[in-house]
């Protein structure tokens, strides 16, 4: 469905993604995992075409996102849904209007048809009857489910999820995880999930991609990731503070800084 070829992305002099080659298969849940600053959110933004890459190509259904016109990009986006980390519901609109947004924008359907679709999508996420609430009245978990319903409104082929479980209580997180899995199976859509939630990620994934410092360090099924003998992978899965991925990001020796040794004081 989505093919990534020698993708690089830089912020100034910082290399966020380094020569990534990936294949995201149709009808599967692909989970991109990694610690903070590993480049996973950047990768998702590139996949969604929100940011153009520094170099390399992303092929969505055979078309290079960096080369298509803005008009074509918008046409492709109608086949894509996205659930943002903070839900990103339009807060001037109520739940119904949020879910119906793309239908109002891009279709000429009768309001009664749209109403039926919205009811179905809200039922799918278990929030039927909440149509008149405003986003500010919703809890984090509910907002995320509404965002999910909104992403599903146009029956997309691909849905991107940015940290779908972060900031949610365990029950809401579980609900959202199982929603992703179920919906993917039922509607045969392709899901791309970015998360640092190891357990949830491994549970729902058909395919796992592990990022570290902008590079793919492991890729495969959940089972093979769990049994990987790469110490970096094991450290990440077990959540140990120290290991090949260091806890301290400091560049100078601690003792030198404490002694105010000249030449060791960082100027920035």
């Amino acid at each position, binding site marked *: 469905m989505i093919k990534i070829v020698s993708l690089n992305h830089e912020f100034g002099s910082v290399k966020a993604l380094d020569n990534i080659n990936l294949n995201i298969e149709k009808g599967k849940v692909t989970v991109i995992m990694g610690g903070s600053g590993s480049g996973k959110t950047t990768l998702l*933004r590139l996949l*969604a075409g*929100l940011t153009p890459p520094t170099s390399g190509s992303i092929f969505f259904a055979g078309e290079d996102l960096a080369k298509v016109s*803005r008009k074509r990009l*918008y*046409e492709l*986006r*109608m086949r*894509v*849904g*996205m659930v*943002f*980390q*903070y839900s*990103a*519901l*339009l*807060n001037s609109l109520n739940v119904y209007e949020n879910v119906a*947004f*793309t239908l109002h*924008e*891009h279709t000429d359907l009768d309001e009664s048809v749209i109403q039926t679709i919205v009811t179905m999508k809200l039922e799918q996420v278990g929030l039927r009857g909440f149509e008149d609430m405003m986003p500010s009245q919703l809890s984090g978990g509910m907002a995320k489910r509404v965002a999910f319903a909104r992403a599903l409104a146009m029956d997309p082929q691909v849905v991107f999820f940015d940290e779908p479980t972060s900031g949610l209580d365990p029950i809401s997180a579980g609900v959202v995880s199982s929603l992703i899995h179920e919906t993917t199976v039922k509607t045969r859509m392709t899901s791309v999930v970015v998360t640092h939630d190891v357990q949830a990620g491994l549970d729902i994934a058909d395919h796992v991609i592990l990022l570290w410092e902008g590079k793919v360090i492991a890729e495969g099924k959940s089972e093979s990731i769990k049994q990987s003998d790469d110490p970096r992978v094991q450290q990440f899965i077990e959540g140990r503070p120290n290991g090949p991925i260091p806890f301290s990001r400091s560049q100078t020796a601690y003792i030198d800084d404490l002694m105010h040794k000249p030449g060791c004081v960082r100027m920035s």
Partner: protein
Amino acid sequence: MVISMIGQLGRNVMHGVAKIGDATMFGLASLRLLFSRPWQGKHFVMQMYAIGVGSLIIIVITGAFTGMVLALQGYHMLVKVGTESLLGPAVALSIIRELGPVLAALMFVGRAGSSITAEIGIMRVTEQMDALEMMAVNPQARVMLTRIIACALALPLLVGIFDVVGLYAGYLIGVEMLGVNGGVYMGETIDKIDMIDIETGLTKSIYFGLLIGIICTFMGHRATATTEGVAKATTQAVMLCSVMVLILDYIITSFYL
């Protein structure tokens, strides 16, 4: 020391010029979308309502007191040289040519401009701009353009209301309170006001509206995506708009003498 100060000054100037260039390009890019589909008609109207009607009360109050103080102050000056019959045109000319557009624009910046910057900034912080983009709705057309056009259309209307209220308040003070002859007051006013005066006021208000719209949306768009960044952008937008309105006012006035 001196060299580094000069260097800093130079950098600030360069930075400022670059920013003005950025804002201009941003404004032009937004305005160009006016001619592209989909047409944002409904959203123009909604923004006009939010921006225009929201600013109505403050504009009426400012207009009334401006007219009143002009009449009061003007009368006491004119009466010394025995020309209080010219009070009407003095009040009317000041309001229509200068104070109407400028004061209304400054109040408009505080009321509507600041909220535009803050709203856009917060939409960015909460990823709503990206969400629009992902839902195949161009945020520059939907959010930026509609607000810029709404400002450019709403401000002239508000200035019109400001002028009418200001003139009437001036009449009340001058004629009813201070006892200038009503016929003279009205006659002189109608006699001395030309079409060019009204045209000046109207031109000013359209340009001020465009300017405020572009600056406020630009600052919101460029705000650092943090709470602090939005706060800073809002303050800067209000400051920049106020100063630019006064500078532009001088420039336009010099063309209409």
